[in-house]
């Protein structure tokens, strides 16, 4: 079964608006990573947040982690058409494999 469940399944916004995606998981994690994927190929790493961190920033991206609620969120500010993609939040198990959910499909309309 897949974990690291992203919510919503799909999101459509206008260029310039902010986009927020959420992620929930069920078991303890070592870290949680956010990836972007265009056209069903080429996963691009965005941010890694470790279990002892609460928030991280990278450019227009802000990721939060709440281990008590087993949830994370990704905020993209001032979205652009180029942000259109699928977003995944696989969790890193104690071990090495990443466990992916089905992702959130973000569409940014120009």
């Amino acid at each position: 079964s897949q974990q690291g469940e992203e919510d919503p399944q799909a999101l459509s916004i206008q260029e310039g608006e902010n986009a927020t995606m959420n992620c929930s998981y069920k078991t303890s994690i070592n870290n949680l990573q956010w990836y972007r994927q265009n056209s069903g190929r080429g996963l691009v790493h965005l941010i890694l947040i470790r279990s002892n961190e609460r928030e991280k920033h990278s450019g227009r991206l802000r990721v939060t982690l709440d281990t008590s609620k087993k949830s994370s969120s990704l905020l993209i500010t001032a979205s652009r058409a180029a942000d259109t993609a699928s977003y995944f939040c696989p969790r890193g198990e104690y071990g090495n494999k990443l466990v992916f959910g089905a992702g959130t499909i973000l569409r940014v309309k120009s």
Partner: protein
Amino acid sequence: GAGVSQTPSNKVTEKGKYVELRCDPISGHTALYWYRQSLGQGPEFLIYFQGTGAADDSGLPNDRFFAVRPEGSVSTLKIQRTERGDSAVYLCASSSGPWGETQYFGPGTRLLVL
């Protein structure tokens, strides 16, 4: 190289044939991973190598799937007696270490079994 590379980018084969998919990780990365992604789904873990050895092959669906990494760098995923259900994008990733490090993905090989 600058990133993870995979060849071929596309592979079309007939049911029952044998295929090999190649992954060239980022230079110096000791950990290498294979994932498989079906349409509309997230990637699913297949196998993980640390150096030359397969440290975790729990994701391989059956014994038709096998992977090697003989010199601790390039890896080959081998699929015997391919079935139509094997059609997917096969993704390779590498990381600098085994514990909680960022995994960098290649562009994938799109396999179509007719």
